[in-house]
């Protein structure tokens, strides 16, 4: 049974066995993949295509397989009608989500490599901006050290190997770099858009063409419809009856529900179809960007 499930039951003692099994798998896969590098070049394209298609197929099955709610004791869960031995299909899906994330996570190292490359080059070439590159590399290193240290400290506290009091310095350091620096910087950069929206609107909202005029008029009505004081302007109109349609908040709601909603739905549907077509082309290996040329 264990053999088919590809698992080892863990006890506190057998960590070395588990590690050995994992290392063996890593080693075996490496050899297998190394073997791939020797296959003839006309086989490369179909091979990559096969990888793409099979990984997509898992989710297509998730779309197609019927499922049922199953009562297990006090809880209800969803099961596929056709269990894929030895797991329920939902478990397969959970693994897939992991796979994509773990692989992207490992590939992040490639991105970090790119950053290190660009900035170390600047430092060693004595670029005009070398100082700023040092600042960047320094703050990156500081964040990694503090972040990981704090994480390890927290984990040790969770199993009772350490106490929060003993790790107070590192917790404070982390909360400074995270809450008081990174988060604040995020918020500040985000809020800068207020200025850019003002200058963009100043330039773009001109009665230059029909399109620009429509956009401006609708934007202003919707805007006023959100402002309580502007609503007071038309508050003199009756609350119901025909004239109520000209109250600014009613105009806003009407535009949002009956004009903007269907227009946006239409554009969204087009985007959805484009995305689906893209996905199909990728799965079939006929999209140039991912397939081997």
């Amino acid at each position, binding site marked *: 049974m264990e053999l088919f499930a590809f698992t080892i039951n863990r006890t506190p003692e057998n960590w070395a066995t588990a590690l050995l099994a994992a290392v063996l798998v890593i080693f075996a896969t490496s050899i297998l993949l190394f073997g791939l590098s020797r296959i003839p070049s006309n086989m490369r394209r179909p091979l990559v295509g096969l990888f793409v298609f099979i990984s997509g197929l898992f989710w297509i099955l998730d779309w197609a397989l019927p499922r049922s709610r199953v009562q297990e004791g*006090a*809880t*209800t*869960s*969803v099961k596929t009608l056709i269990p894929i031995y030895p797991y329920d299909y*939902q478990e397969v*899906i*959970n693994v897939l*989500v*992991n796979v994509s*994330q773990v692989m992207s996570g490992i590939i992040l190292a490639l991105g970090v490599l790119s950053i290190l490359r660009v900035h170390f080059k600047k430092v060693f070439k004595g670029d005009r901006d070398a100082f700023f590159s040092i600042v960047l590399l320094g703050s990156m290193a500081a964040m990694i050290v503090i972040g990981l240290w704090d994480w390890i400290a927290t984990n040790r506290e969770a199993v009772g190997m350490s106490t929060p009091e003993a790790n107070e310095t590192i917790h404070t350091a982390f909360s400074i770099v*995270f*809450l008081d620096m990174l*988060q*604040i910087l*995020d*918020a500040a950069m*985000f809020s800068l858009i*207020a*200025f850019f*929206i*003002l*200058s963009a*609107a*100043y*330039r773009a*909202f*001109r*009665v*230059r063409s029909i399109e620009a005029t429509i956009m*401006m008029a609708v934007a*202003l009505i919707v*805007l*006023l419809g*959100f*402002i*309580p*004081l502007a*609503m*007071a302007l038309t*508050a003199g109109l009756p609350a119901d009856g025909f004239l109520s349609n000209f109250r600014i*908040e009613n105009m806003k*709601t009407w535009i*949002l*529900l009956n004009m*903007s*909603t269907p227009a*946006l*739905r239409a554009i*969204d549907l087009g985007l959805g179809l484009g995305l689906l077509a893209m996905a199909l082309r990728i799965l079939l290996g006929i999209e140039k960007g991912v397939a081997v040329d």
Partner: protein
Amino acid sequence: MIQEPQTEKNIWQTLYAIDRRWLYLILIIVVSILVVNPITVPNVVDPAAKSLYDYLSGLEEGDFVYIESDWTNSTRGESRGQFEALMRLLMRKKVRFCISTLGDPQIPDIIRPIINQIAQEPGSNNYQEGQDWVMAGYFPNLEAHVSGLVNNIRNAVKDKQFAGKSIVDTPVFEGINDLSDAKCVVVITGSSTINLWYERLRAKTKLGLMCTAVMSGENIPYYVSRQLVGIVIGAKGAFDFETLLAEEWPADEYPDYTNYTSGRRYMSPLFFALMLLILAVVVGNIAMIQLKKSGGRS
């Protein structure tokens, strides 16, 4: 850069291509003055916000609501006011709730003090963590979390603990065996985490959304197609919720109750900033028309 032949520009030419930094300076001045000295503004409640408020306000004591709070400091201006108003309503109605978060691992640390502070207020029925509400904490994987919750809520949060025991063993989760036992799922977010709920949530569970104003355009269609029970939009939505709270618990009957916070506070600077924008657009247009008339550049 626009090269003008004549040395002296007339006022319209200056205004037409005004240096954007002047606009920025005026905005900074206007907002600064009103942030320091806010003015109280009246309100007209949005029906979509009222719809969610009425639904939640109609819940009975002991009902259960699942909350996903995804906001971080970057949308604090809008989401915090919404979150506070929601907490006040649920606590006053004695509705049990469980909060999870998908946005950022630090969110529980940001919102827990807010909840505890509101729980101390008069009218909040002295809400206790583990008794009346629980924090399911942070879930890194959006996709797996939402499908997990929909498939089996107890299983999805059973690893999260409060005071040494699993949160599903606390009184909060009593009688909650499926997400459809929750009266509502409320998502407070500044990002597109809501899309997954539309995709995964089964029709029987109701979904409410508190989002930033920017997201309203794409989410109102879901309110129209009734995939949402109600939608609370931006700081105005927070102000709406605060206004509705004040209607249900008016200040003369409940003098100690806090109904208004940042929703109302941010309304007057917002109003004047938007007025500034409208003024700028009008001036820009007049400048353009004047230039056209005088045969300047069009």
